[in-house]
């Protein structure tokens, strides 16, 4: 199966457990860490690209441990009404998720390619990009 991107949220106590280790060891999943963050309250947020035969069992394991699991594609939002298709984001986006469709010169967003670096949030002059976790 092709890799899927998911957002994981860890409580303070969960952040100290080697959960990803067991995801790899017990469920034989391939893990690519796209983004990771632990806030001052020691709560963790992890964006993973995940693939493997036991993908669903792996997710069940995460949930059983108390990890909140959300699909990433629902979290990246482009406000199409606000976007003017200027293109300011397109040369900045490192993965090509935001690109200019030619010749109609319209900015398009491919959520599957997004690596949630959030550069588009900073560089969009009209604040049309939103990330919701």
């Amino acid at each position: 199966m092709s890799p899927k991107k998911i957002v994981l949220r860890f409580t303070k106590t969960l952040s100290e457990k080697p959960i990803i280790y067991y995801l790899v060891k017990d469920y034989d999943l391939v893990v690519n860490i796209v983004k990771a963050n632990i806030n001052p309250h020691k709560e963790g947020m992890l964006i993973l690209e995940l693939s493997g035969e036991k993908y669903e069992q792996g997710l069940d394991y995460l949930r059983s441990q108390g990890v909140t699991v959300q699909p990433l594609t629902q979290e990246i939002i482009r406000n199409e009404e606000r976007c003017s298709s200027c293109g300011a984001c397109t040369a900045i986006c490192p993965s090509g998720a935001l690109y200019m469709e030619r010749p109609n010169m319209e900015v398009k967003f491919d959520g599957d390619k997004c690596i949630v670096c959030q550069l588009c949030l900073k560089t969009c002059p009209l604040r049309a990009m939103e990330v919701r976790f």
Partner: protein
Amino acid sequence: MSIERTYAEINSKIKSGKVVVVTAEELVTMVKDKGITAAAKEVDVVTTGTFGPMCSSGVFLNFGHSAPRMKIQKAWLNKVPAYGGIAAADVFLGATEMPEDDPLNSSYPGEFRYGGGHVIEDLVARKPIKYKAIAYGTDCYPRKEIETEITLDDINEAILMNPRNAYQNYNCAVNLSSRTIYTYMGLLKPNLGNAHYSTAGQLSPLLKDPDFRTIGVGTRIFLGGGIGYVVWNGTQHFPDRLYDKNGKYLGPSGGTLSVLGDLKQMNPQWLRGTSFLGYGATLTVGIGVPIPVLNEEIIRYAAVPDEELYAPIMDYSDAYPNRKPCDLGFVSYAELKSGKITVNGKEIPTASMSSYKKAREVAGILKQWIQKGDFLLSQPAQLLPNADDGIKAKVLKG
């Protein structure tokens, strides 16, 4: 026989519903197919458009007098300061003004999430605005402070007055240094990581009337979704012609427009608060200018395609900020719009700060207004200075 038309003849055709209007983009294709002479015979008006960040924008606001009366000394709209050094109940709010408690660039790169341009967008969107003002008190204007809420419909006048808009041409910005820089041309990655430009190219108003043969004081235009006027040349109006090292003409540059219109009949879709990371806040403005086809020469200029219009490539890490010479050459808008250009032997991605899609919409709306008979062309009381007038930029000593 060459074509000659007058404003009166064109307006007569608009009123009778027989006017032929094409956008500058459509004209490019038409001239490629039919040639200049045939297009000149057929077309009466060419519409242009642009939708990009234009920092020199602002609004004059006149509030109804409070009881007791008050002579506004300092005022804030949604915490953004407005200039009160004019008549008692008037203020001017500039697009780039920021709230006094904004960290600005002290937390570099600053986000500049809400400034004067955003207030203007909220005003024109009819959102309630928190208004605060203070005064020193006089016998005729005794009140010293007020804090209330206003909407655009609650106040007397709101005049969009933009001293410098619609730049004729602009730089293609690159970064030769080894660090990321944050500019009014967006985020520029190090070591020629990207190239940013900001114009609609073949649709952009002042690229299509390069010598100001039709645009002048009193020209009626599309401004912010409503009708506005060119009221003067813009500040920093230094019209010039670009040539390469071999003397080949690369198009015009340097002209600007000063424009004005009634904010109350405009639309937030065409006046958008804008933020540039590490630089500041501003307003993105939609402007469309009609070009009357008075003769064949005017349509020849209006038909120039992206392939024949060029931007100078400028290094924003050192040459631009320090006013040093920059010799990176020129690039055509056709190349810029393709998504990649080559600078110093390196292929780099390009992106625009202004929207070609929206520029196309502006030119299309203006075309519809003219076709429906809702928008007549105005003959300028005075044309704007052009490159032959030799106006040069002054350098500030110090």
